[in-house]
């Protein structure tokens, strides 16, 4: 039975979903599960939830809960990472509040933009520390990374280590489900092909029985049925011809067209929830508190749509599946730079995670992705070399920040953020 390590297991809600998925498979129900977190209090809550979950499923896993990372990783076959470095307070708040002083507003700030850059700079050193441990303690491990900013984190790991890593997100399957509802076609009847970079992949195919469903998506616009919370992505469908995988509030900050200092009308017209991520963090903190108070109540287990358990199951049993993984661009998408982190369909079976080759994307999609990859490349460069100048460069190439600010403002914004984050960041020179 495999050993599966949860890194950042104190993310109780997320860990519960993944663990429920895993233990629901008979072949995995007596796996060895190691829960690791630096916060022993949160870890305790997760451990209690895990035991109740196993009981509810009638599963008999071997549990271990530890704040010792080396112990958790020792001999692991799978490591699943769900950490957040710096937390909501102080780190995330800083990422929102300081840019705001410069007139730079954000909605999610976990992928690209000033917030995404800073989050990567906090996270990458921790991830690299982890993979160094893995190289010693479990060199054959499969590392499933759920931590954002996905592309930057995975790119950095791939550049720095040979540990088998795949970045996972639920935006591809999640958006497909939303679109299925919008056009009234059961999701089980839909076949799609998506590719690109994480949070900015596009559905190259969206069809039922070989019949193109894009006309039905365009009909949603024509008939005025665009959901209020999804106006940005339908606008992009109109302008670029393809539907993107990550939500409207995310997408609005990856491009320069929607959030503009002197254009409050756009925020209203496209219904962009500025500061949304802050509200989500507050809600999650509340949910965790509630969960902690209900440790005795019975637990309902439903399978999630996360890929994590499916990958482990396919690798263990050989049952072939297709998942969307974030992997190094080794001749997968021709018109994106070699080595960058791309999100493509991957075959998973006993041979491992096997990315499929996409070829060239439509040029307008590749072009848009290049603007995001620019920021990723420079952030990764900064994180791996410790050179401060590349942090400035990353901000200078960010499509949203560069549209709003001049060079002097961008530099002093970065200076101020680095000072505010203090010890959460390594030294840059």
């Amino acid at each position, binding site marked *: 039975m495999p050993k599966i390590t949860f890194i950042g297991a104190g993310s109780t809600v997320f860990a519960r979903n993944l663990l429920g998925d895993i233990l629901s498979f008979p072949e995995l129900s007596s796996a060895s599960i190691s829960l690791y977190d630096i916060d022993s209090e949160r870890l305790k809550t997760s451990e209690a939830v895990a035991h109740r979950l196993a009981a509810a499923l009638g599963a008999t896993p071997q549990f271990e809960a530890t704040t010792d990372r080396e112990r958790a990783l020792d001999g692991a076959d799978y490591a699943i990472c769900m950490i957040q470095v710096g937390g909501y307070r102080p780190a995330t708040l800083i990422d929102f509040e300081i840019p705001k002083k410069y007139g730079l507003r954000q909605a999610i700030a976990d992928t690209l933009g000033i917030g995404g850059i800073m989050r990567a700079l906090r996270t990458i050193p921790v991830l690299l520390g982890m993979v160094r441990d893995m190289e010693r303690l479990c060199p054959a491990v499969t590392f499933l990374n759920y931590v954002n900013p996905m592309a930057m984190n995975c790119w950095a790991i791939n550049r720095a280590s040979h540990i088998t890593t795949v970045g996972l997100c639920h935006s591809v399957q999640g958006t497909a489900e939303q679109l299925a509802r919008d056009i009234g076609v059961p999701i089980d009847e839909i076949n799609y092909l998506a590719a690109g970079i994480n949070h900015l992949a596009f559905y190259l195919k969206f069809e039922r029985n070989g019949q193109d469903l894009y006309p039905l998506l365009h009909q949603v616009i024509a008939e005025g049925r665009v959901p209020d919370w999804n106006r940005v992505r339908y606008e992009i469908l109109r302008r670029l011809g393809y539907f993107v995988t990550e939500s409207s509030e995310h997408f609005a900050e990856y491009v320069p067209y929607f959030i503009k200092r002197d254009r409050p009308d756009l925020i209203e017209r496209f219904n962009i929830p500025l500061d949304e991520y802050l509200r989500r963090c507050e809600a999650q903190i509340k949910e965790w508190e509630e969960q902690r108070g209900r440790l005795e109540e019975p637990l309902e287990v439903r399978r999630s749509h996360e890929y994590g358990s499916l990958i482990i199951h396919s690798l263990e049993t050989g049952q072939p599946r297709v998942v969307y993984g974030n992997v190094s661009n080794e001749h997968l998408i021709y018109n994106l730079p070699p080595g960058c982190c791309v999100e493509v369909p991957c075959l998973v079976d006993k041979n491992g995670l096997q990315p499929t080759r996409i070829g060239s994307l439509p040029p307008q999609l*590749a072009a*848009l992705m*290049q603007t995001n990859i620019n920021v990723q*490349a*420079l952030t990764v460069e900064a994180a791996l070399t410790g050179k401060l100048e590349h942090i400035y*460069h990353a901000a200078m*190439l960010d499509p949203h920040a560069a549209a709003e600010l001049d060079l002097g403002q961008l530099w002093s914004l970065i200076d101020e953020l680095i000072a505010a984050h203090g010890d959460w960041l390594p030294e840059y020179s």
Partner: protein
Amino acid sequence: MPKITLIGAGSVVFTRNLCSDILLTPALQESTIALMDVDEKRLKQALDLVQALIAGRGLRARVEATTDRREAIRGADYVVTTFQQGGLEAYQLDIATPQRYGIEQCVGDTLGPGGVFRALRTIPVLLDLCRELDELAPEALLLNYVNPMAANCWAVSAATGRPLVGLCHSVQGTSEMLASWIGVPYQEVVYHCAGINHQAFFLEFRRGQEDLYPLLWEVLERDEIYAQEPVRIDLMKSFGYFVTESSGHASEYVPYFRKSARMVETELVPRFKDPRNSWYGLGRTGGYLNHCLSRLAAAQDDYQELIAGNKPLPLRSNEYGSYIMEAIETNRPIRINGNVPNRALITNLPVECCVEVPCLVDGNGIQPTAVGALPTQLAALNRTNINVQELIVEAALTGKRDAVFHAIMLDPLTAAVLTLPEIHAMVTEMLAEQAAWLPPKLATP
């Protein structure tokens, strides 16, 4: 002796300079020079000037002039393109219409809405020319001087596979300027420069093994230096390297400097204090267009001056054209910075895009050298421009009208200033008003 054809020879000043270079080159002095233009009057003036050069120097070169392009290229060994499709009339639209939407272009011939439309007008003419070359001069080397360089060359390579090199004088010109700033004799300077046209960077600037960048960093702080190139100096301070095209151009390829008319007038223009930059209006919107319009008025006087011999003949200029032909004819190697398809030359730029890299030229032709990876921030900046170029090529080669919109949606300056519906309206208007110069598939919805 080779036959050298100039397409767009009515650009009389350029024609005279290039022909003077050719005629100063021993290996080319008995060439046949064929001048072609659609404007008979200007063609005749160009012919007069070249004939005067030949007579004045007592050479045996032959020169002919024709408005028939097929005649001009028949049997040519070198074909040099310098035409401007749509002329100043189209150029005015390139500047004025975007300006009404808030896009403040200074030169507008490389990127931005102006660059996109200039390319869309030009590429069909270049492709036509290449088809005729396949028939009438299949071995001819195409030397393209027409902007937007990168998009034009990329389209020709992608559509025809014909040997070509795109040429510009920004690398040489900038290197001379930098040498003069730091007081190092130009002959002693060695540089390594690569990127894309108008946005290549001096990766190395040396005298022997001595890195001259520290000297450059020092002089940048001097007021009279900064006043010459405020934008390029700001970019060097931020990106770490000096870029090859002037501050007027450089300011419009990025989103930082021209966010509004007010910003241009109150923050950008006042930083230009050197009258040598008046050719692009000290960074003002439409600066270079206005310069062209005023020069148009003076063109007749120019011609009279030149033909009367009142302006001294220039020494051999720093344009690459004559040096390339000489190196190929004599098999004496030279190095130029040429625009060629990116076939494993710059590893962190897209395959097949048009890159400007050092090329060896000798009897074997144009041989690009592999640069490897650019510093990440420079490649990233180049890629923002390459996005637009790739979509221009897509539009020009497939006739997909959507790709024109996509190109301008990806333009860094336009995207920083306008919303998607505004871009849509602007491009729709530009496609309509420039329909006469565009392929019908692009012009009509």
